[in-house]
């Protein structure tokens, strides 16, 4: 068998990688252990959230599928951080997990260049330093020019529930044992991480009257530019909390939790801590939130977000039964922790290709990340870069001031990670430029130029761009006069005009609010030019234009800072630059040689590389370019 690209794994990274490569016209074989589990949400039934929602929007702007699948499976949409500024608001959707996997599988199956093979890859075949294919455990050889490994938590994975240990990557699914060895043979160093899940309970055993209902937004906002409207019925989630009884119980039984008994030695995520971790680390907190999330429209289970645990079953029962609303809940599946191998990502280039092995790309949890969105984003970039390699073109590397995806990959390949890496807005120093409402302007042209954007997305992004331009022009040009009608209409906004001014000026007033403004506009004939454009545009588009005007001062500050940093950080370090120099300590040289930074900025982010060392490298580069100039 022969394909252009082989994708190992059918999770969120594998799906995006396969979609991107087949969309660009290359033949793709996805090899997965279980065909049914392609696109499965193995942990919480939700997509997006703070910073993660940004990733999903970026994926959508680059032609990825995660946003589309979410819109087709979403049963509760909510923009988080509404009280904060627009750049850090993150969309999130609760999904029906069965519909989600079905949507992913449907999208992939529509790609003419896509094939699905059920099997387990034993090793990657090489010729010298080039990938030539993969060999399956049953001996089948598949040849290809690029391999994208997206094996998630399945490398030498071990599940822990209390004192019980089971070999396997996910409940009821086998572990991929051979590949780890194959990666070791390539000289890659592997680390070990752990992640965990909370217990699931039967939906009909919960008492919702004891919990606080958590509704979604009134008007669900789709993730994908392809979606006009969310079709599925929208449901409620619930919130409840743990209490002192459960905390005491957990404290008394810590010795039975694998993370504390020493049974698991790998590092877990500090950011998505297990309930055992929370009780130990936030000892003074009397309660911890528990979000009760349906797993689907008709799914029999509830997901207890916030109480991830690997304690033994009897303790899990007691803890769950102490939570208001879950006193007589029946646990359908106990929480467990998974321990797995990951490849230390500093061994990758920013294209996600393994340094020194042409054609081998890694994406997703195998690189030490956590979360569907992080995995999908890497899968997409690895898929695009496998295509660029096969085309003989430059890899696509997004800058830190261009996308959260750029931040994530730069962090991984430059700094590595000691715990499962999760995206946060705090990781993105240029986040004011990276709001969800600007992804199509920022990223779609790039994807379109490289042939990764479908026709419909191209059409819609172009339309959106035109409309946004027309709207911001109209807001600049349409002027209000301080007459009686105007001030009457503006009264609900708490604004009264003393002199004429454009709508843009109005938007910049502190008291301005978009919903009140939209209401004031209704039937206001002098403003028809504005209202007619707004009627065509999506809520997100209008937000984008208004926010750009409203926060222009901060955005410009951010842009100036980004430009300043770019001139600083953009300085390229030649591939064959020697770091062994007087003045640079052996330790620093070792780190630089391990990461081989491409730019001064990347060098400055390597842990342990001091500002003084960066100064020296800059001076060496300057001296070098000066003497080259003289030689000319």
């Amino acid at each position, binding site marked *: 068998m022969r394909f252009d690209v082989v994708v190992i794994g059918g999770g969120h990274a594998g799906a995006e990688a396969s979609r991107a490569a087949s969309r660009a016209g290359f033949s793709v074989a996805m090899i997965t252990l279980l065909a049914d589990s392609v696109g499965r949400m193995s942990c919480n039934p939700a997509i997006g959230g703070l910073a993660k929602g940004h990733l999903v929007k970026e994926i959508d702007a680059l032609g990825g599928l995660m946003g589309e699948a979410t819109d087709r499976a979403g049963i509760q949409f909510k923009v988080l951080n509404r009280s904060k500024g627009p750049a850090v608001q993150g969309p999130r959707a609760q999904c029906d997990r069965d519909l989600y996997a079905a949507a992913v599988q449907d999208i992939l199956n529509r790609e003419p260049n896509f094939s699905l093979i059920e099997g387990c890859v034993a090793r990657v075949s090489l010729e010298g330093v080039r990938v030539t294919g993969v060999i399956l455990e049953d001996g089948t050889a598949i040849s290809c020019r690029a391999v994208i490994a997206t094996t998630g938590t399945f490398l030498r994975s071990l599940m822990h529930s209390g004192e019980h240990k089971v070999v396997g990557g996910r409940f009821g699914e086998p572990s991929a044992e051979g590949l780890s060895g194959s990666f070791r043979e390539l000289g890659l160093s592997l680390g070990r991480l752990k992640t965990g899940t909370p217990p699931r309970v039967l939906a009909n055993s919960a008492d919702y009257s004891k919990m606080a209902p958590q509704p979604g937004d009134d008007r669900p906002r789709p993730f994908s530019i392809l979606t006009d409207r969310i079709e599925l019925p929208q449901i409620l989630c619930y919130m409840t909390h743990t209490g002192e009884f459960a905390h005491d119980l957990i404290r008394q039984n810590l010795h039975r939790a694998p993370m504390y008994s020493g049974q698991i030695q790998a590092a877990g995520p500090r950011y998505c801590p297990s309930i055992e971790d929370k009780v130990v680390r936030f000892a003074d907190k009397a309660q911890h939130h528990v979000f009760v999330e349906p797993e689907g429209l008709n799914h029999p289970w509830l997901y207890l977000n916030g109480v991830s645990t690997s304690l033994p079953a009897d303790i899990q029962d007691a803890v769950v039964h102490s939570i208001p609303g879950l006193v007589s809940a029946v646990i359908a599946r106990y929480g467990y922790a998974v321990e797995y191998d990951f490849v230390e990502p500093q061994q990758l280039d920013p294209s996600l290709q393994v340094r020194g092995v042409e054609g081998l790309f890694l994406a997703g949890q195998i690189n030490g990340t956590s979360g569907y969105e992080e995995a999908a984003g890497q899968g997409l970039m690895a898929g695009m870069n496998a295509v660029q390699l096969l085309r003989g073109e430059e890899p696509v590397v997004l800058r830190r001031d261009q996308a959260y995806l750029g931040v994530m990959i730069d962090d991984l390949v430059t700094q590595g990670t000691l715990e499962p890496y999760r995206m946060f807005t705090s990781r993105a120093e240029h986040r004011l430029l990276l709001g969800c409402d600007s992804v199509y302007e920022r990223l779609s042209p790039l994807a379109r130029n490289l042939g990764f954007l479908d026709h419909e997305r191209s059409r819609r992004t172009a339309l959106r761009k035109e409309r946004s331009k027309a709207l911001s022009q109209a807001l600049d040009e349409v002027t209000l006069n301080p007459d009686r009608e105007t001030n009457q209409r503006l009264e609900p906004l708490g604004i009264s005009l003393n002199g004429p001014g454009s709508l843009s000026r109005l938007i910049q007033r*502190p008291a301005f609010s978009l919903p009140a403004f939209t209401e004031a506009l209704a039937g206001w004939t002098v403003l028809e030019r504005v209202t007619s454009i707004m009627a065509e545009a999506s809520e997100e588009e209008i937000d984008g234009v208004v926010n750009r005007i409203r926060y222009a001062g901060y955005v410009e500050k951010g842009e100036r800072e980004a430009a300043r940093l770019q001139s600083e950080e953009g300085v390229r370090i030649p591939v064959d630059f020697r770091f062994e120099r007087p003045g640079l300590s052996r330790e620093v040289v070792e780190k630089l040689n391990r990461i081989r930074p491409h730019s001064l900025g990347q060098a400055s982010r390597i842990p342990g590389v001091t500002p*003084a060392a960066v*100064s020296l490298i800059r001076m*060496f580069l300057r*001296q*070098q370019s000066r003497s080259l100039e003289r*030689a000319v």
Partner: protein
Amino acid sequence: MSTPALDTIVAPATPLATSALAIVRIDGPLAHSIIKGLGAPKDLAERRAVFVRLETAEGPLDEVIVISYVAPKSFTGNDLIEITCHGSPLIVGTLVKEVIDRGARMAEPGEFTERAVLNGKLDLVQAEAIGDLINSRTTLQAQLSLSNLGGTLSRWAGEIRADLLFLIARLEGALDFADEGYTFITDEEAMRHLDEDLARIRSLAETARRGRGLRDGLTAVILGRPNAGKSTLLNHLCGSERAIVTPTPGTTRDLIRETVIVGGLPVTFIDTAGLRTGGELVEEIGQFRALEAASKADLVIWLEDSSDPDLTDVPSEARDAILVFSKVDQKAAPPEGLGISARTGAGMTVLWERLDREVRDRFRPPEGSPLIVNARQEREINEAGDALRQARLGVSEGLSEEMILVDLYAASSAIGRLTGAISSSEIQNEIFSNFCIGK
């Protein structure tokens, strides 16, 4: 691309002017062979003053002392030759040209120091302090540059930066974990930190003012009505006949300056046209200049003629002025006033003591305090202050954390650049551009 071989550079290390002696430096792999080609012995001793008769193709050039350094034991870390020749610009020029003819090139400004940095002999902060030392105008300034080299400024700035990071971490937490129900910091607490940091920055900025006094000296303007004796006072202060003294009121029409050291700092005294209404146009322009100079001055002396019966109101430009009564040999000063007589010299010692105290109290940095010595550092601290005021405004207006954080990060980077914790090519260029060729 391989590293191009290090080349050899040459430059005079002393100013090109007629003087007793001048020094020329040669740095790089050819340094030793070039000096030997110019007549130095083959077995030129290391780190010793060696007498050499320099010979060129046109004949003998000069009798000089050569000191030879061998890499890495030199200021730059490379092979280095220092030639002390006679201080004629012609000899220095010919010598440099001969060295260039033998394969060296003219050094760029600061290139010797840059080479020292590249070879790990100095770090950038030390290089900057060396630049400040070279440019010092008083011994006090030199001492303070050295104290910064020892880390006084870095320690202060480090404390502000640590507190900013404390705030940043909490505001970031509030953004990242908005849904968890934790309170990371209250507005009041954030405000308190910002106010404390602003106070610290203000006191650093205050040292910048003092630092500027050290660097550029102070100005003291003598103001007063016509014929109060301003020019006579200037002459007394400066010990010369710089200003024309005549009994005709309004003789001084333009500003006259003279510099003397007071309280360890260079102080430039400025004599001005007398302030009165009426008079010629030229005089009016002079009066305008006088007031303008006073508003920019570090010190103002308001001179009042104690023999003049109607004492005037002091103009607003001179509100904080040192009040001095002149001509006390004719009529005694009011009991609270500082009286002098230029003719008899009475009161001048008291005036000197007063000036000395003013300079020390207001402009001389206290012992052991950090000091912002150069313009780059002053700009960074002001940028940090501006950003923090913006952040404070953001908190008081209830802006969302990510906007406030923009300003906090800006403040924190400015302070990082101040101490060298953040490096940038801009900073490097600025540091080395303060050097002249040959340093």
